[in-house]
């Protein structure tokens, strides 16, 4: 009996306190409707995998973002607005990618760049879409932005995986290679690549058959067994989809096993490190990429040449030579787009309005935008903005005596 009494008392008191509080309560999502006073700083958020399994990719991304922001603030910011960049590390943790996105939204950022990996981006985009905040991802999974109709608030800057794959297939087709073996990482990047590599429409379009599909774990000690399996088939080439260290190990193992069919990798190996760890085995490896790796070979007429040279010079001078890589580029492109939107943003918009403006601007007004990844043309149908015809979208890089060279085909 007394128990019930106790509960009753507690309840009454709780309700009373609630009533007290409830007087001034106002429900509703984050943000707040007060217009930003002029010359107040523009807040931008960034989420990268700086630790954990994706940190090899995420490592240089914040550096690129910081670099641009510092340059802008050094020149007095955007229309008198200081640029304020908050970078968070989601530790390659998906739930954390979502909660950090929410945290940034609560901090009132106008746009978010990142996360680094496809999985994390897909988690974060749920939060940003709910809160109507533009997200410019640095991951290449096409399911982040495709179909654009369902991803109104989401963009990404890397070349989409299937474009890279088509680029490889065109190359194989021209080389009359029809039988390929796949060797893909079991982590996100590799799995997504595998799904695209196996797409029937692409295979038939380029007349390619997959004779064996093997996978490996990012931290496996070696990949010889998978290569042995491939050795038993009549594969004419090996396509490896993954980032460090897998492809390097595979290159070395193929050399060890005296397999002399070509090894073709993804744009996920466009680091110096790949060559460093693969050693001489790296020679002959072919991969699709943006033009950054071969900037020196670009003709002066190339729209990207000057831009890329400047980017690489700035980056290397600030962070040490050879550190500029395509991943830094993705982050650089992402934040540049947001910056351009901000430069064209009228004064006195509320946070919500500003967010909407940035989204609309990126979708409709990022045209002939020269970035590290290529020349972007965003549209309501294309939230990646890079050309979809393989040969325009990407070039092929071949590693010759430990150097990136432009494989013109």
């Amino acid at each position, binding site marked *: 009996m007394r128990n019930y009494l*106790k509960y009753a*008392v*507690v*309840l*009454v*008191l*709780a309700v*009373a*306190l*609630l009533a007290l*509080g409830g007087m*001034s*309560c*106002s*429900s*509703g*999502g*984050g943000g*707040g409707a007060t217009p930003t006073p002029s010359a107040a700083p523009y807040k931008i958020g960034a989420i990268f995998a*700086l*630790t954990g399994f994706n940190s090899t990719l995420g490592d240089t991304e*914040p550096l690129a973002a910081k670099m641009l922001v510092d340059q802008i603030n050094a020149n007095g910011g955007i229309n008198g607005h200081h640029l304020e960049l908050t*970078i*968070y*590390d989601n*530790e*390659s*943790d*998906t*739930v*954390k990618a*979502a*909660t*950090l996105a*929410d*945290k940034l939204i*609560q901090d009132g950022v106008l746009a978010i760049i990142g996360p680094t990996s*496809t*999985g994390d981006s*897909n*988690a974060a*985009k*749920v*939060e940003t879409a*709910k809160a109507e905040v533009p997200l410019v991802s640095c991951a290449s*999974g096409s*399911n982040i932005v495709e179909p654009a109709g369902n991803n109104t608030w989401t963009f990404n800057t890397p070349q989409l995986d299937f474009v890279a794959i088509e680029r490889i297939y065109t190359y194989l087709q021209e080389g009359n290679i029809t039988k390929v073996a796949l060797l893909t990482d*079991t*982590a*996100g990047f590799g*799995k*997504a690549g595998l*799904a695209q590599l196996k797409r029937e429409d692409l295979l038939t379009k380029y007349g390619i058959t997959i004779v064996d599909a093997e996978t490996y774990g990012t931290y496996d000690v070696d990949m010889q067994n998978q290569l042995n399996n491939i050795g038993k088939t009549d594969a004419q080439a090996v396509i490896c989809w993954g980032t460090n260290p897998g492809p390097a190990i595979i290159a070395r193992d193929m050399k060890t096993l005296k397999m002399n069919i070509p090894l073709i990798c993804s744009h996920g190996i466009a680091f110096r490190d790949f060559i460093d760890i693969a050693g001489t085995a790296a020679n002959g490896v072919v991969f699709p990429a943006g033009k950054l790796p071969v900037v020196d070979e670009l003709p002066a007429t190339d729209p990207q040449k000057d831009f890329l040279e400047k980017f690489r010079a700035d980056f290397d001078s600030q962070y040490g030579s050879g550190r500029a890589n395509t991943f830094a580029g993705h982050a650089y492109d992402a934040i540049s787009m947001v910056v351009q939107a901000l430069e064209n943003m009228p004064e006195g918009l509320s946070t919500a309005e500003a967010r909407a403006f940035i989204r609309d601007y990126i979708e409709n007004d990022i045209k002939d935008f020269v970035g590290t990844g290529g020349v972007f043309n965003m549209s309501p149908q294309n939230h990646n903005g890079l050309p979809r015809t393989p040969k325009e979208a990407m070039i092929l890089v071949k590693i010759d005596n430990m150097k990136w060279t432009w494989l013109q085909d």
Partner: protein
Amino acid sequence: MLVRLKRYWSYLAIAAVIAFFILIPFDWFLGRYTTLMIFIGIYTIVTVGLCLLMGYTGQVSLGQAAFFGMGAYVSAILSKTYGVNPWGAMIVAAVMTGAFAYIIGYPIFRLKGNYLAMATLGLGLIMWILFKELSQFTGGPDGMSGIPFLAIGGFIFDTSFRRYFLVWAFCLAVLLISQNIIGSRIGRALRAIHGSEAAAESIGINVTQFKVKILVLSAVLASLAGSLLVFNMNFVNPQTFDFMSSVKLVVMAVIGGLASIWGAVFGAGVTRLLSEELLVRFVGWDIVIYGLILVLIMIFMPDGLFVKLKEIFERLRLRYRQRGTEP
């Protein structure tokens, strides 16, 4: 008289806590932490299960993320791929996870102590690999998006404001139920098993059966939490259920003081606050500090932060009392 007065004070305290929790999601109060609080609530539910299993019954599990993930994926797949009503999916998930726990329970509890830890760790890893590899169902490492929200009739839990109350309602229910179980003959049986299996047998407690039952209960709780997780994030991927997340769950339980149900709230709260509010500023160094804190807590308060704080509080109160009684 004094006694009664004191009782009313304690009621007031409880009421204040309740009111505080009810007010959190309002913007003019702590609204900006709503999402964080939702995750704390979800992780509390898993942690409570772990407390029952590890703290009270003394059975180590380094693979709790397996059950957590099973709940999440079954709910996600049923509701998204097969269009099952989310509540239905949630129940099916709980039943399946419970059944799974029951099946593995009997063989696995032939092991004790460290060997049990090894086996559960192995199970956790196997489930994680399955989540990754069965991509035709699970979407692989990139995960599944487009999972629906929970809804009651037309009332959809689509704002974090609404989900906050949903999750914490679950959380409170779980806490009260576990509280009751601990206080009951079941709870005594579990604690007896922890105390001495031989003595427990001698007074008629079926040790193995109770171990299995409590494993099932903790698995069902983990499964519920998993379902809430996906219906909250509308997204799920395997990485949320890897070995480290099993470890994080254990850490929450231990910081909350393994053998204290209400400590679970604290444990889940502290760990997530630590990693998502306090440490995020130390970009890159956050995990270093996190590791350091783990070690220090385990060294200086092996019974958990919560228990330690309770001790300190008690000591202060006693000192206050004494001062009060001094003439």
